[in-house]
């Protein structure tokens, strides 16, 4: 997910080594801090907090922000080729929202003491992670439908619990994001529904997009609980509120009937309603593919980073002009005094 810890085992080990050795629980302060969290109090920017809380949150929030920003790229690919003016307007508005989500999140992240410039540098230099899902290409118009329906749909399932996360600025940013997210999912589903009800070729296109996006979407929730060792601490801090597997199951249970409603088939031969659990059973996920994409073997990893770096460097003249203008204005204001 946008917020899953995407560091590889080696990266985690390295981070642990570089951390100053300190007792597992820094008794008094960490105890008082945990008590505040257990009491459902919000933590605000200038409050005392354990260094590890600050670090973990900074990583989670900035990775979330990067995901929103990079997430604009696969959709931007279709703005000029949207099949109607209506669809183009909607897609532009949706992409603009994603830029907004990124900025809300950088704004929340900055309250923890890392500047937006530093976070963006980390993304552009390849040090920071973003959701693996955006390293898949959007090859047909139906992919834009699948992305809105599945990727934004998965994001909603992940983000709703984060509206109650323990860090105030993050929780408030999530409330704004969640309010805006539902249109994203509905416009995507509408695209899929229109194609699924269209010509045979259009329906085939919709099914093909679902086939390609289904597995990456459900892998977005991150490794199975058995393999995600860091979650326990994040749960205790309430910066993660449900396990990866719980959220994944919730998403699958919501989405399968939606696919059926428009006559599309979820590409999982093992998918079966389990009466006893009141949930769908599903087939094994390909975690080798997941980690390969995290490590940079996705079809579009290089393109995404290059697009971000180019956008930044090609915008340099705009920033320089704005700075020159600001300086001129403040000089003439001083002269007028």
């Amino acid at each position: 997910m946008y917020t899953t810890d995407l560091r590889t085992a080696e990266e985690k080990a390295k981070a642990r080594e570089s951390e100053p050795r300190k007792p597992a629980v820094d008794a008094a302060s960490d105890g008082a801090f945990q008590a505040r969290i257990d009491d459902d109090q919000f933590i605000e920017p200038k409050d005392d907090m354990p260094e590890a809380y600050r670090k973990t949150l900074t990583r989670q929030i900035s990775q979330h922000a990067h995901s929103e920003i990079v997430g604009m790229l696969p959709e931007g690919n279709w703005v000029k080729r949207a099949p109607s003016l209506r669809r183009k307007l909607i897609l532009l508005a949706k992409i603009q929202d994603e830029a907004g989500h990124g900025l809300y999140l950088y704004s929340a992240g900055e309250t923890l003491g890392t500047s937006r410039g530093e976070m963006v540098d980390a993304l552009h230099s390849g040090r920071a992670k973003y959701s693996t899902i955006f390293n898949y290409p959007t090859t047909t118009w139906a992919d834009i439908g699948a992305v809105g329906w599945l990727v934004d749909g998965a994001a909603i399932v992940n983000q709703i619990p984060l509206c109650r996360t323990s860090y105030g600025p993050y929780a408030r940013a999530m409330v704004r994001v969640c309010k805006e997210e539902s249109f994203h999912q509905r416009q995507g589903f509408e695209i899929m529904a229109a194609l699924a009800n269209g010509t045979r070729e259009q329906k085939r296109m919709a099914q093909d997009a679902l086939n390609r996006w289904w597995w990456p979407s459900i892998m977005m929730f991150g490794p199975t609980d058995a393999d995600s060792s860091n979650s326990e601490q994040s749960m205790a801090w309430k910066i993660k509120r449900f396990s990866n597997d719980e959220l994944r199951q919730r998403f699958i249970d919501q989405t399968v009937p939606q696919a059926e409603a428009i006559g599309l088939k979820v590409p999982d031969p093992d998918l079966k309603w389990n009466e006893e659990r009141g949930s769908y059973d599903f087939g094994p996920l390909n975690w080798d593919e997941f980690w390969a994409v995290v490590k940079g073997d996705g079809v579009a990893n290089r393109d995404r980073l290059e697009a971000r770096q180019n956008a930044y460097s090609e915008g340099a003249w705009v920033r320089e002009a704005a700075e020159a203008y600001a300086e001129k204005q403040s000089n003439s204001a001083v002269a007028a005094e």
Partner: protein
Amino acid sequence: MSQTGGDWDLYEVFIRSKNGMSHKHVGSVHAADDAMALQNARDLYTRRSEGVSIWVIASKNITASDPGDSAALFEPAADKVYRHPTFYTIPDNVKNL
């Protein structure tokens, strides 16, 4: 020059959702100057008619209380219950008071 760590100044953004309400803090933006901060705030925080008025102020110009001083600042109010109307005993037969 108005650059902070490779980025422009940070501005805090306050929005009045409709007349009759106070401005409320919603987040922050970066900008090269005040006018740009206002434009960026408009683009970022009022895409869905969330406001009728915007204030922006450079974060460095805000003086905030320190959570560490909370006890000294706010606890003295706790034992001044006589500031609340419920502190006073009024005979049952007295009305409009």
